[in-house]
């Protein structure tokens, strides 16, 4: 049986929620397996995280060193490949850090790489049948991943039901000496500093109603109709990433995994396709209205109410009627 490894993310000494998703995914892959949780970080951070992980995992490998106080994938990758047995199946959540770490790790391990899995369907011997998304969720695919030489698999956060049972009192094993036996890896990429995102003129994380616009708006000039709707509704205006990339709105108005996490009561998604990175920034299940000209847009899977329409046409009419209604 291939060793099953769950790479645990943590921040400021707090374990990431995805740890429990990794656990249930590991159990789906190999019900008999005893997945090992791997926790790396500075002494100050790892202790609590290891103890928390040990409530869910029977074995926890701890690697602590000051060189790990900031998670630098270029340091972590060589250390991991020193301690991970060849043929391991390594699970981690698909997000900014793993996009940096995981593809290269699969090469170091001579293992297959299965990125951003949203489900596992079946395992036949050394072949895993998994589900992936393409084109921002417009279509899905079944893929066969060959596990013969091990695999590095990243999981879409939220796609696997977390295993909440905390019935273990796992053993914490210090793997630091083994990881650093050959000394620290030569540093080719040195972390300098973290720059926090700038605060903008409005704080959309506090908004109760958000009128949110995406690439469907087509031109910068058209944004006027969105601001007008925001005004008549007394709502704040937010957006998806392409609007910020085009420099049409400030970064502080971007909703998503690389933007703000918002918790409004009502969310209007106008010309937004509904990528997981966008939806990842919307919490607290708001009442969602989506307007999109493509009836197959993935946003309609998650919205409560949908309108299939051209926003350039529909939004001005909506603003006018609301304007009359509130008069």
């Amino acid at each position: 049986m291939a060793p099953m490894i769950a790479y645990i993310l943590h921040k400021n000494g707090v374990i990431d929620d995805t740890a429990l998703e990794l656990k249930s995914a590991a159990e789906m892959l190999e019900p008999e397996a005893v997945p090992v949780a791997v926790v790396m970080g500075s002494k100050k951070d790892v202790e609590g995280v290891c103890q928390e992980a040990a409530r869910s995992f029977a074995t926890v490998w701890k690697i602590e060193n000051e060189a790990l106080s900031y998670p630098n994938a270029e340091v972590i990758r060589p250390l991991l490949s020193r301690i991970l047995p060849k043929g391991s199946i390594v699970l981690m959540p698909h997000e900014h850090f793993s996009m940096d770490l995981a593809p290269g790790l699969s090469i170091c391990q001579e293992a297959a790489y299965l990125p951003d899995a949203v489900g596992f369907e079946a395992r036949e011997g050394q072949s895993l049948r998994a589900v992936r998304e393409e084109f921002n969720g417009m279509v899905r695919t079944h893929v066969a991943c060959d596990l013969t030489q091990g695999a590095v698999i990243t999981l879409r956060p939220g796609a696997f039901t977390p295993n909440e049972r905390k019935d273990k009192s796992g053993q914490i094993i210090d793997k630091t000496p083994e990881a650093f036996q050959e000394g620290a890896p030569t540093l080719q990429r040195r972390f300098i500093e973290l720059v926090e995102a700038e605060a903008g003129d409005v704080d959309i994380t506090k908004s109760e109603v958000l009128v949110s616009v995406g690439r469907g708006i087509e031109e910068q000039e058209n944004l006027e109709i969105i601001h007008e709707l925001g005004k008549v509704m007394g709502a704040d205006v937010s957006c998806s990433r392409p609007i910020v990339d085009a420099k049409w709105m400030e970064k502080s108005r971007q909703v998503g995994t690389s933007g703000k996490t918002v918790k409004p009561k009502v969310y209007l998604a106008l010309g937004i396709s509904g990528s997981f990175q966008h939806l990842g920034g919307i919490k607290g299940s708001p009442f969602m209205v989506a307007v999109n000209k493509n009836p197959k847009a993935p946003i309609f899977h998650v919205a409560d109410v949908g309108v299939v329409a051209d926003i350039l046409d529909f939004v001005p009419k909506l603003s006018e009627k609301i304007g009359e209604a509130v008069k």
Partner: protein
Amino acid sequence: MEILVCIKRVPDTSENEITVNKEGTDIEREDLVYSVNEWDNYAVEEAIRIRDKVGGTVTVVSLGSEETEEVIRREMAMGADKGIHLMDPALEGSDGRGIAVALKAEVKKGGYDLVLTGAQADDGAGQVGGMLAAMLQRPFAALVNHIEVTGADTLRIGREIAGGNQEFSEIRLPCVLSIQTGINEPRYVGIRGIRKVASVEIPIHGISDIAVPAETVGKTGARVKRIDYFTPQLGKGAEILEGSDEEIIDKLIEILKSKGRIK
């Protein structure tokens, strides 16, 4: 600086509805509009800016079918100096690893200081750049949204991380970086620009030109294979409002009122 940018030709998701074909073997490819992968376009723009500042050349490389030449030419019209087209029957059906194997051989052949990829492709998952770097044993950074040349063999780079925060590092050349959208504003390419490069020769490299063994690429080399495509059925889905615009708007206003969102 000698810069190589890896680009991919993909169906343009802002121009097309992507649907599954009847048999579920592929997406419906008829009438699709293709373009260069959005992330790669930012990468080419960044390469051109670096070259214009510190000198050197920008080469774009793409692995794909005959039609791939269009996107190579488009990025040359943007300002890339050279193009390379990787094409060979043995490369068909490659997974991310197979593509990285071929690109690695091309990098070795050309001896580039800086290799840029997109952070991800619309039909990929952000794997080729990181794999390529590991195969070349060069330092790597994913989701780069800032690059400054700070020395003969050092760059100061910004990486995007969660919440829109930015992580700054110093990285040594030669290296591989995957570029995130928003790093710059890619220039517009007009018809005139395209015409200028219309007759430039773009060499085609097959696996023998780059000394890649056939079994390491293509379907045989692939460890992750697509079985089929399907349309996701998720949740209960939205209640789609029907009727004329006026009727829909009235219904919507009723709904928003009931949510206490308009008085």
